[in-house]
């Protein structure tokens, strides 16, 4: 009897030790956790990642964090408990999302960040990030030329805890601040949100009715700002956005938006899914931060672009 108990104990031990091994017949599962699905750009990012994962033979599910780190944390716990094998992740907060990624790392689940960054170079397996700073340097040069180096302008910032917000703002200011006749009369956050941007812009116009330009940290805010400006009879004001979303590309072609910066969410999402695929295949040496170039889009080159990318 003693020997039987000992053998059972050993079998349990061996079973427990091999618990992390993959179930060989089932397709691997990929969780796609995105900051918000209330912005078409992120919907496109998530759906493209899901499509690519499916093409590569994996099951996937999209989780919406609704820009809430607590909800994002729940999604990570659910994904880990439900046996997902990789997470394609668009974080809500550069600092606040690090602990979620570390949790996944501890569970030996790779995390590939898409578009938004986390403040760590050890937690995620890789971070695929748009080069927002360089793009906003280019937008800044265009802004200076468009306003002919003089005038008053407003800046609408995105979510203040997101690094993209500051990389875009800093890239823009690294150029524009060198021109003393360009004066920023207001700088406020509108959380990357179209409706909030419209309200913020309406409020700013009360205090500063004479403005020549608006620089926005994303296209949703740019579209909100345009709505407020048109309602106030100031459609001559030059508005600049960032993202390359569908409505922004249309607005550039119609002359309502001076310029946007085309990020390539398709490239970012497909690269993240492909990295997960390579990870499953045994690859481990991924670049920690992989910058993806961004193109400035204005009336002069709009014929080369469509929503979320270049024309095929």
């Amino acid at each position, binding site marked *: 009897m003693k020997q039987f108990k000992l053998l059972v104990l050993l079998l349990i031990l061996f079973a427990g030790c091999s618990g992390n091994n993959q179930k060989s017949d089932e397709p691997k599962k990929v969780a796609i956790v995105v900051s918000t699905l209330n912005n078409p750009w992120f919907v496109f990012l998530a759906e493209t990642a899901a499509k690519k994962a499916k093409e590569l033979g994996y099951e996937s599910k999209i989780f919406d964090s609704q820009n809430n780190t607590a909800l994002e944390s729940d999604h990570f716990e659910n994904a880990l408990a439900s046996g997902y094998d990789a997470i394609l992740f668009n974080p809500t907060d550069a600092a606040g999302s690090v602990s979620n990624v570390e949790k996944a790392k501890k569970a030996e689940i790779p995390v590939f960040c898409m578009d938004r960054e986390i403040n760590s170079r050890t937690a995620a397996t890789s971070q695929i990030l748009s080069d927002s700073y*360089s793009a906003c340097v280019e937008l800044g040069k265009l802004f200076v030329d468009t306003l002919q180096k003089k005038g008053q302008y407003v800046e609408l910032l995105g979510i203040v805890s997101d*690094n993209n917000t500051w990389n875009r703002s800093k890239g823009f200011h690294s150029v524009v601040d060198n021109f003393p006749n360009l004066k920023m009369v207001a700088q406020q956050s509108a959380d990357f949100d179209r409706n909030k941007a419209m309200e913020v812009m309406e409020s700013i116009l009360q205090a500063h009715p004479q403005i020549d330009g608006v620089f926005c940290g994303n296209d949703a805010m740019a579209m909100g700002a345009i709505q407020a400006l048109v309602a106030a009879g100031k459609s001559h004001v030059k508005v600049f956005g960032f993202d390359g979303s569908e409505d922004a590309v249309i607005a550039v072609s119609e002359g309502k938006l001076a310029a946007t910066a085309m990020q390539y969410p398709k490239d970012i999402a497909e690269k993240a899914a492909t990295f997960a695929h390579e990870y499953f295949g045994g690859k481990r040496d991924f670049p*920690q931060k992989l*910058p993806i170039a*961004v193109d400035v889009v204005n009336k002069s080159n709009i014929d080369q672009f469509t929503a979320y990318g270049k024309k095929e």
Partner: protein
Amino acid sequence: MLSGGLKYALIVLAVGLLGYNSVYVERLSEYKSGVQKTLDVKAYAQEYLFKKVPQSVGKAVNITELISRVSGNPKAVFNAVPESRRAGDQLYFLVKGEAEIVEVAEEYVLLNSSGDSVKLKIATEYIFGNASRNAAGLISADQFDNTMDFNNVSEEINRLIRSQILPPFKKEARKGDTVNFIAALEIRETAPKLTDIELIPLKLVIKPH
């Protein structure tokens, strides 16, 4: 009935397996590397621009030679650019050369280039972006916890170029002088523009006419 020896061997194996799966060993050096101290951007940029870039002059490619190679077989040149000197479509080159100044304009100094079809300029007004940081291939995003620090390095290098390298050059440069330079060049892989080249200066030495 198991013999006494086999019984103890199984117990030792069981304890060994339990122990192996209960303890996780991580190098302290790897653990520490995940914690970045506050970066002294000014000191970092100073060290890069005034020490590391001049030491890297051997890795710089002659600008005339680069133009010729890109004009002949751009794909071969671009494919050889390592990850540390590219950001997506943007490729960065550390270049060197010596040429006669043919015009001193408000925003640039025009140099005498070998080909009539090439306008070769040293930027003296618009010093922006990441070319100055990326050209030498010595600084990578992977070295920083966040890209804001990485971009702050570019801003500080550009500020040093504007405040320390350009003022004496702009004061002394005259038409007919020869300038010896190390510079950063940014080329778009999918749309290389070699007819109007603007270099971001990293080191400039004037040889008066």
